[in-house]
C-alpha cells in the first residue's frame, strides 16, 4: 500500500503534509494496534483519499471515574485534485463528506463499542473544521499541545450512540 500512496498530495500546508506522512510512515504501525485504514476510490478507478478509525482512552481528572473509551479518526486526507468534487450543489455528495459518513457509520462497531467519536484538528485548517462541524462534531475545551512542535490542536467530538 505504501508505494501506492507515497506520491499522493493532500495539500501544501504543514497540517496537510502531516496526513501524507502519517499514511506513509505510521499507518502500518497503527494498524498493528487495531486502527483500520481505508483508501477510497471513485467509479473512474482513481484513489481519491484515505480515512482511518481507531480507538483511544480519555481519562477523567477524577481518578474514581472510569476512563472513556472513544473512537478516534487519527488521520484523514483527500487528494488535492479531488477537493470540492464531485461538483454540484449538494455538499453531502462531496468525496470528503462521503468519507466522513463512512467513518462515522462504522465507529460504533469498534470493539469497545464507543459512544463518542473524537478527532484533533489544527486550528488553521478551516476547511476541515467546516467539514467536521457539518458532520455534527463539536469543539470542546480540549487543546492538545504537540510537544514536538509546540503547536496546539483542538479536540472535536460527537455522539455516535
Amino acid at each position, binding site marked *: *500500500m505504501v508505494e*501506492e500512496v507515497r506520491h499522493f498530495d493532500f495539500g501544501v500546508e504543514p497540517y496537510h503534509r*502531516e496526513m501524507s*506522512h*502519517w499514511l506513509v*510512515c*505510521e499507518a502500518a*504501525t*497503527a494498524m*498493528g*494496534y487495531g*486502527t483500520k485504514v*481505508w*483508501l*477510497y*476510490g471513485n467509479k*473512474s*478507478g482513481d*484513489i481519491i483519499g484515505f480515512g*482511518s478509525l*481507531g480507538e*483511544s*482512552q*480519555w*481519562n*477523567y*481528572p*477524577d481518578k474514581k471515574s472510569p476512563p*472513556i473509551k472513544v473512537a*478516534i*479518526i*487519527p*488521520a484523514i486526507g483527500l487528494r488535492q485534485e479531488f477537493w470540492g468534487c464531485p461538483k454540484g450543489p449538494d455538499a453531502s455528495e462531496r468525496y470528503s463528506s*462521503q468519507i*466522513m*459518513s*463512512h467513518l*462515522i*457509520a462504522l465507529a460504533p462497531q469498534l470493539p469497545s463499542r464507543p*459512544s*463518542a467519536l*473524537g*478527532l*484533533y484538528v489544527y486550528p488553521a485548517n478551516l476547511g476541515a473544521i467546516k467539514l467536521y462541524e457539518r458532520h*455534527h462534531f*463539536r469543539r*470542546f*475545551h*480540549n487543546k*492538545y499541545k*504537540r510537544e514536538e512542535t509546540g503547536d496546539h*490542536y483542538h*479536540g472535536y*467530538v*460527537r*455522539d*455516535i*450512540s
Partner: protein
Amino acid sequence: MTPTKRARPASQSQLNAYVESWQSDHHDAMRCADGEDFIAVGLSLYDLFRGQDKFHREMIFRGVSGYFVADSVVFRDGLTAWLNTTQSVLQTQIISLERNYSVNGADRLRECASEVAEYLSNWTPPTISAALGLREFQLDDAAAIEFDRVMGEAKVNPTPMPLGPPMEELSLADFRSRSESK
C-alpha cells in the same frame, strides 16, 4: 499529559533457563521427546517476549509510557538470546532428529525464528504516535465538563447518524483489477 508509567521488561529467568537447558542437556535433546519439549518452551517464550515487546511499544505509541533506552535494550537482548539459542538448536539438534522423526512444532519454531531475525534486523526504537488522537489523553476539569455537556446534549437532541447504503469494500488488488478492466 505526562507519560509516567514504565513498561515492565520480561522476566529474564525463563529465558536463562531456556538457554541453559540447551547448553547442559544437548545430548539428551537428541531424544525426540526432549526436542519437542525444548520446542514447546521456545514457542511459549517467543509468545511471551513478542507479546511483551508489542505491549511495551504500544504503551509508548499511545503516550502512556516514556521511551527509555534501557527498557528497549532488555527486550532486544532477550529476543537476541532467544534467537541465538533457537537457531543453534534448530540447525543442529532438531535437524538431526528430523532425519528419523516427525518433530512437532519444529516448522512453527523456524517461522518464529525467521520472523524474529527479520524484526531484529529492521529494529527501530519505539516512538509516540504522530496522530494525536491515538495517544491516551488526560482530560482536565474544563474538558471533562464540556465533554459531558456535549454528550449530554446529544441524549436530549440525538445527533443524526449518516444515512445511505454502506460503501462497497474491496481489496486494493480487486480495486485495481476492476479499474483496469474498464
